[in-house]
């Protein structure tokens, strides 16, 4: 069966510090990978998606970037965090096409 792992589960960072959140998928190959941000009382906002190694598409201009160095690894990064980067970050995978997305348990990021 397929599993998706995200870490860390929680993170507290000072403004201006760098960020690296990691997501890995097991049990499948060549998945589509997604990063979302979830704000309280709002839906899930798609940040980045990837259909293959090194292929990243950004949905919204922001202070974040994403990379996919390996087939089942997806990384969310920032060089300098802003207060507005606080939130709950979710990674998801799917087989592509009209197949369901499956989510990790997220990272709660707090910026001080």
């Amino acid at each position, binding site marked *: 069966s397929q599993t998706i792992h995200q870490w860390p589960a929680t993170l507290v960072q000072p403004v201006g510090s760098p960020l690296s959140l990691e997501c890995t998928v097991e049990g499948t190959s060549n998945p589509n990978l997604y990063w979302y941000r979830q704000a309280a009382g709002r839906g899930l906002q798609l940040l980045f998606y990837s259909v293959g190694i090194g292929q990243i598409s950004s949905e919204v201009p922001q202070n974040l970037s994403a990379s996919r160095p390996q087939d089942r690894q997806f990384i969310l990064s920032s060089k300098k965090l802003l207060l507005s980067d606080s939130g709950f970050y979710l990674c998801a995978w799917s087989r592509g096409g009209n197949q369901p997305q499956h989510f990790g*348990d997220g990272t709660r990021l707090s910026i001080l």
Partner: protein
Amino acid sequence: QQQVKQSPQSLIVQKGGIPIINCAYENTAFDYFPWYQQFPGKGPALLIAIRPDVSEKKEGRFTISFNKSAKQFSLHIMDSQPGDSATYFCAAGKGSGTYKYIFGTGTRLKVLA
């Protein structure tokens, strides 16, 4: 056109009641409609999904009703239990090449014992 409108924002029912959550969309290119259940501190988990060629789908106590002409779909939870208390999200998916989902804003459900 890209939005999925979800209502109500919150819902409280007694145990055994049938909460109903509604979603509406505009873009007829959407071709897959999943529902997700999310508990606090966890990621959303796929609950049930439907494609537009079907008007109803049941899985256990969960039922999706789909009205293609009205561009609406809804989730019904039969015999609701306190353990069903969670936030529920609808979504609509589309895409050729890269498939993407648009999510509703969520419904916080509380089932009273």
